[in-house]
């Protein structure tokens, strides 16, 4: 067979056998529009990115982001500086990569994995290791839970995140400290931390067995009158597994406040 005929046959075969694959064109366009928030009136908006050392790599703005009814104010909650610059964006995914590769050290071994952007209902974003965890809503709270069903021998493994609009971190930390003392054998003093978040920590442990309950409560200012409360629950033997993974995920926590224009 002549070469030019082979070439023609290959091209014809590729074209003929992929006819009809474009049926989803308008559905896909609608998805793209929604994700990029293109359905809004276009207007010029000046974007001032947050200067936060823990912020996921942000996309350089060209100043042509489209506006939405709600503008997001991104507040960096990490680092020693309290940069309160504001960024008005039409869609969080304009600013944060939907997925990224990270290297975590788990039980002494480096693990490379893909983490996925999640927008919490309480006004924040976080990157989740979806290979091991998923985010659910329970009793009005965002809860990051282990993907596998654990049998009854294992205590709760989860990380819940909520916002308390009207209480300062110090007040909430004192409340948790008091409450945990009623149920946990050992409750550490309230400590100020800068890792994985900048805030207060109340930690407690209920014994020294493999399955003894461990809880860590991080309280972060919401940059106004309130606080974010992040509670990690796991068991002693899982400190370097689940405990370490929760810490890695929490490093990516970032407050996002939605203001109506």
């Amino acid at each position, binding site marked *: *067979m002549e070469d030019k005929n082979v070439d023609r046959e290959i091209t014809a075969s590729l074209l003929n056998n992929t006819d009809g*694959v474009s049926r*989803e064109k308008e559905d896909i366009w609608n998805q793209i529009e929604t994700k990029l928030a293109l359905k809004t009136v276009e207007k010029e908006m000046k974007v001032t990115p947050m200067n936060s050392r823990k912020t996921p790599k942000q996309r350089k703005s060209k100043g042509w982001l489209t506006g939405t009814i709600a503008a997001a104010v991104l507040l960096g909650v990490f680092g020693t500086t309290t940069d309160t610059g504001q960024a008005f964006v039409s869609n969080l995914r304009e600013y944060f990569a939907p997925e990224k590769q990270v290297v975590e050290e788990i039980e002494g071994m480096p693990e490379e994995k893909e983490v996925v952007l999640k927008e919490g209902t309480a006004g924040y974003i976080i990157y989740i290791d979806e290979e091991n965890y998923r985010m659910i809503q329970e009793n009005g709270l965002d809860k990051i839970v282990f993907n596998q069903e654990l049998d009854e021998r294992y205590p709760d493994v989860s990380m819940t995140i909520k916002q308390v609009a009207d209480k300062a971190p110090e007040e909430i930390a004192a409340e948790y400290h008091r409450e945990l003392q009623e149920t946990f054998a050992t409750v550490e003093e309230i400590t100020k931390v800068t890792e994985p978040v900048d805030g207060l920590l109340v930690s407690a442990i209920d014994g020294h067995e493999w399955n003894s309950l461990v809880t860590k409560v991080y309280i972060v200012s919401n940059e106004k009158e309130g606080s974010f409360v992040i509670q990690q629950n796991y068991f002693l033997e899982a400190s370097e597994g689940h405990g370490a993974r929760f810490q890695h995920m929490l490093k990516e926590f970032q407050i996002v406040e939605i203001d109506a224009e």
Partner: protein
Amino acid sequence: MEVLNDQEIIKQIQNGSKSAFRELYDLYFDYAMRSATVVMNRNAAHAGDAVQETFIRVYQNIHLYQSDRPFKPWFYKILLNECNRILKKNSKVISVAEIIEQTHNDQQLEEYEDLYQAIQALEPHNRTPIVLKYLNGFKEQEIADILEENLNTIKSRLFKGRQKLKTFLEAKEEAN
């Protein structure tokens, strides 16, 4: 002239034009879908996801595009990365039916029912350059740039892929 057209559209997108982005979508969607469908082979159901994510990334990263270079290779580089990312994500899940199909595809080329199946049966590293050349009309050097491979490697992969398809066509011709 198509490159100029692309450049004009890109410039308008960079200036915030939604209608220009839609124009780009109309220009590129069909062949992007065709390409993703062939490249993703048995994961073709996810071709739409790859194309959708590609356009989102193009829109979000349009400021990174260097206007002194042709747009089309840049677009296809993003598309293939998305295809690979989704394939990698789904690589842990393989059904029994797929294993049977894989076994069937590994058998002699003469057993294929038509040329498209022969193309689908090529190794991914042979199939993707074939798609870029015959469906998208890229030159060998452009394919090497898109796939970030050495030009000779691409030449070799195209040659091997094409040889297999030629053998298949000749066998089919003889049989008829």
